[in-house]
């Protein structure tokens, strides 16, 4: 019913801009998904209201909680920006999780392998190594697509599995922490760790992520490159006719989105995990797809969506501890989001 009302309101009133409409649809999808989430929570045997209360207090209720939300939001934001850019051209990279792991692996290998004498430069070098590794993994996908029209969605996902096996091998053998009882990779030296911002317990990777927002936003909306990206997404034939080299553009987009995913992995390693941990990702590469779509493929939208889903991740952890609701309810809510978002968008535009 809510959808039907907004349909009338939105389609009959051209005063409302496209952006406002998209925002309203995002909000409608969020509200509906949270309602469905309440049903899931009831099924799990908890009461929705107290559970949502701990979700809120666990995500924004204290300095610590806000810090947790920001920590969760950083990888989502960094990956989400790259995906949003690529998705604009309908280059659907869904292998960001593997690119993330390879980025972390390269950053870790560099940080462990280089002598500590590099000082703060070590951080910079390892972050660059991470971005390069993720970018290389993305490049493979782009190259295969540009050269032989190999499907991006499938090849990026298959390569993602391959990347995680490479990661698992390296932390099981050459870079294993032999003192740990479980399967854990080596820790990185202190010099390679990102310093914390005082107060919220957040690492400075947050500022790298925030700095990327205006940069990616500018590239998307104010540059010829961003224009070509959009044109490729809207009409590949027209883009080709007007001289857009679509193959090269796809490669560049895969390198950028893979590179940002790799950078996110390197930041996560240097700022949060401090060691090559097999559970480094927490599914960020996939949640970032939700972030990009919920954020309407715009840089500010991605920022808001990353904060929101970061809060959901952080609050979900609090909820699973306080109210005995499985953490996976967060994943279920995310899944429902995307479906509702598609439906809300479509109904608002008229079928």
């Amino acid at each position, binding site marked *: 019913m809510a959808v039907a009302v907004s349909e009338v309101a939105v389609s009959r009133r051209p005063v409302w801009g496209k952006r406002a409409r998209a925002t309203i649809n995002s909000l409608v999808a969020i509200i509906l998904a949270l309602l469905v989430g309440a049903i899931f929570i009831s099924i799990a045997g908890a009461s929705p209201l107290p559970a949502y209360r701990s979700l809120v207090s666990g995500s924004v209720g204290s300095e610590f909680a806000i810090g947790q939300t920001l920590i969760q939001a950083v990888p989502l934001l960094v990956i989400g920006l790259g995906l949003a850019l690529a998705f604009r051209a309908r280059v659907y990279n869904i292998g960001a999780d593997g690119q993330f792991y390879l980025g972390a692996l390269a950053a870790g290998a560099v940080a462990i392998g280089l002598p500590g004498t590099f000082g703060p430069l070590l951080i910079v070098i390892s972050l660059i190594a991470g971005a390069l590794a993720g970018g290389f993994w993305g490049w493979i996908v782009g190259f295969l697509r540009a050269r032989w029209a190999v499907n991006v969605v499938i090849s990026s996902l298959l390569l993602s599995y391959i990347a995680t096996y490479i990661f698992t091998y390296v932390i099981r053998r050459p870079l294993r922490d032999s003192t740990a009882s479980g399967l854990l990779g080596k820790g990185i030296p202190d010099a390679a760790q990102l310093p914390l911002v005082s107060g919220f317990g957040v690492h400075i990777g947050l500022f790298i992520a925030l700095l990327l927002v205006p940069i990616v936003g500018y590239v998307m909306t104010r540059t010829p490159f961003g224009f070509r990206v959009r044109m490729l997404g809207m009409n590949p034939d027209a883009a080709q006719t007007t001289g857009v080299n679509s193959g090269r553009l796809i490669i560049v987009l895969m390198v950028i989105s893979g590179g940002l995913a790799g950078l996110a992995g390197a930041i996560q390693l240097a700022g949060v995990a401090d060691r090559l941990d097999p559970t480094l990702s927490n599914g960020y590469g996939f949640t970032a797809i939700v972030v990009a779509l919920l954020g309407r493929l715009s840089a500010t939208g991605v920022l808001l969506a990353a904060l929101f889903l970061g809060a959901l991740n952080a609050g979900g952890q609090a909820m699973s501890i306080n109210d005995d609701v499985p953490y996976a309810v967060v*994943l279920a809510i995310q899944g429902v989001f995307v479906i509702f978002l598609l439906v809300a968008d479509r109904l608002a535009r008229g079928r």
Partner: protein
Amino acid sequence: MNWNEVIGSSALVPLFSSGVALAVPTATAAVGECFSERAGNLNLGVEGMMLSGAFAGFIGTYYTHSVAVGVLCGIGAGVLLGILMAGLSVWLKTEQVINGIALVLFAQGLTAFVYGKLFSTSSTPTISTPANLHIPLLADIPVIGPVLFKQNSLFYIAVAAMLGVIFVLYRTRFGLSVRATGEDPAAADAAAISVDRVRWIALLVGGATAGLGGAVLVVGQLGIIQTNVTAGAGWIAVALVIFGRWNPVYVILGAFLFGTTDALQLRIQAASGGVTSGFPYEFFQALPYLVTLAVMVAVAIGARRTAQPAALGAPFRKEVAG
């Protein structure tokens, strides 16, 4: 590392036998995906459908101790997601690539939740998988007998489903409508075929086979459940359709290649001695994905012209006069 255990002469028959068994869940989903793609639906939600089928199948069998109930639950879950997919792709006509990705995320979230709710606290839940049959006479043929005729009942159900789908696609009037709809929906429409109806049904068939594939994997083979138990098998099914060039027979052959690679890596992993081994068995674990990708690339390089249904992924909007 004893390679004789892996590919020695006495190991080959068990290798192919488990290769065929491992191929079947993916093959079933891939044949169904082939069917929906031939109708023009690009269904990238196969992984989600298989995963849901696997969970529903496991839960059905876990609580009723009946394999048949499990299989029906698996098919049912696949069909439900097929309805969702058709609602998005055929009715709402939203972008099909996004629909598929959304469906996978949806199913992954939902099944992770179900797992957390039902099984996370108990010790690893198991069900007993059906025993292998021994088909009279045929099972005694050397090599082919043990490979093809000493599998369990779900294997044959899956094979029957695949043959049924192939039969419908090539030997029935409806199959002709499916192929026409995928190649030229406007012409099909002019011939009084309801394009949207055909695509709806094709997606339900695709959902049912993917759900069956997931159920066969878990109820017929693994006997255990875990989050993301399908581990990308649904994506491989989509890749198989591409490298089988939309011909279900080639798709099945491709699945066999994938299954054998999978069987090979499992053996290598077992023979290498586990986590303490110096042998990099992870590279062999990655092999099924790598082989799938490599063959997909090889087919793409070799293809002179595309075999892809012309209207694949394009929603059909009927032109209405006035």
